[in-house]
């Protein structure tokens, strides 16, 4: 017989694995499908056993220049994240350490921009970028992503900075640290895990963003999400190719997330500094 503790461990282990497998299954299925022929791909369970083929990947390679889409995704995601962090750091610093009676309202107001459905501002934003000739440019995506993710970046940083005792910042002021030095030498080192996980989340959100990338880009600045979308259009759905291109699109970010997961977990469970 198992002791009570062993049973708890067993059950929570089963529950954890079940949940993890449920979450992982779509990615697994996508990956498996990407190695099937189109006929096998729509065959459902009948095609559980098949001879893996690389023909979908070859087809994608012939039709599109993967590297160019990848480069756009990397440049746009990381630039937008760095910009969002650069804007959010001093903003949140002042909100946390020099709050006014209205700081909470400002936070709410910042978040409220996220409550607006993006499609509601599609036309004005499209026209704005058109008038400055930035349609199908990385700059347009970077601007949209930077400000689109800013509310989330601000909110996450706010919770991390809140954990830093105000007296530590005051002590550094007494020691003669300028605002920039307080941020660079005290605040950033103390909240680095939090900043890193915020940045990582922002990169992932930018990477997977499809609405704006499909609407604002076509070829020159199109990121991987646009590439994926281009495979689900006029000629109908080609599940195997769609799976292959999706696998290619998420592979870099999954790899990136896997490498940084220790940092991410540490950041998201980041507690008191003391």
């Amino acid at each position: 017989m198992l002791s009570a503790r062993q049973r708890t461990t067993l059950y929570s282990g089963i529950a954890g694995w079940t949940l993890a497998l449920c979450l992982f299954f779509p990615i697994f299925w996508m990956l498996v499908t990407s190695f099937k022929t189109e006929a096998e791909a729509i065959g459902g369970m009948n095609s559980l056993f098949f001879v893996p083929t690389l023909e979908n990947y070859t087809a994608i390679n012939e039709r599109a220049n993967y590297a160019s889409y990848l480069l756009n995704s990397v440049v746009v995601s990381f630039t937008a994240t760095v910009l969002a962090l650069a804007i959010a750091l001093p903003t949140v610093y002042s909100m946390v350490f020099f709050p006014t009676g209205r700081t909470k309202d400002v936070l709410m107001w910042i978040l409220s921009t996220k409550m607006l459905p993006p499609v509601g501002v599609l036309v004005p934003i499209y026209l704005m970028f058109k008038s400055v000739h930035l349609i199908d440019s990385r700059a347009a995506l970077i601007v949209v992503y930077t400000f689109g993710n800013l509310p989330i970046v601000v909110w996450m940083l706010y919770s991390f900075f809140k954990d830093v005792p105000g007296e530590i910042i005051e002590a550094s002021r007494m020691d003669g640290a300028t605002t920039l030095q307080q941020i660079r030498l005290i605040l950033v080192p103390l909240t680095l895990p939090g900043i890193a996980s915020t940045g990582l989340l922002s990169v992932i959100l930018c990477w997977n963003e499809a609405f704006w990338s499909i609407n604002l880009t076509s070829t020159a600045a199109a990121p991987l999400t646009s590439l994926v979308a281009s495979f689900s259009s006029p000629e109908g759905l080609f599940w195997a190719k769609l799976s292959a291109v999706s696998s290619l699109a998420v592979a870099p970010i999954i790899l990136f997330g896997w490498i940084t997961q220790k940092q991410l977990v540490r950041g998201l469970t980041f507690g008191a500094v003391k």
Partner: protein
Amino acid sequence: MANITLKSVRKAYGIHEVIRSVDLSINDREFVVFVGPSGCGKSTLLRMIAGLEDIDGGDLTIDGERCNDIPPDRRGLAMVFQSYALYPHMTVEENMGFALKLAGVPERKRKEQVHKVAETLQLTQLLARKPKDLSGGQRQRVAIGRAIVRNPKVFLFDEPLSNLDASLRVRMRGELIKLHRQLDATMIYVTHDQVEAMTMADRIVVLNQGRIEQVGTPLELYRHPKNIFVAGFLGST
């Protein structure tokens, strides 16, 4: 040398007045204790002198110079916080040398100064440690050391002993008095503990609801309290 003068100094948060026209002059090398019930404004007053809170009205002068709009680090003050406020990611040595580093003191000179102070506070063995590996009393000494290294004209203490256990508190009290004699500096000390006030102060400033009730030596206040509040507050010791 450091005389501090407050002239009709005021502070309000919105319509709520926390400091109502305070006049006070603190002499060079004096050990002055601000005492009063919580919420009386003693910490706020100290933070206004430090430059961490803006002064809404009146004048603060240090050695004859008006300091209302001078940033904290240029007032020649050092402060020891209630929570010690050590930088958790720096070693004891880096903590103590931080102000010097910011001031552009070269590394060798900085090290020399830090080691000298560390020796007087018996911190030499701990210089390589991080704050989390120190006991409460040791952290307290590092916080004091960090203040001393800057060689300030005035030391400000914001309830520095309230986080220590009773026996350590008594010992640190003695060490602070000794330190005051050694350093020959002006010290302003905030506490809500009447015993600390009575045993450490050259002069006590009793505050209540943002006003000074009475200023005087411990015995003056004890023997000749100006009103019931002062008598009650110190007498309940």
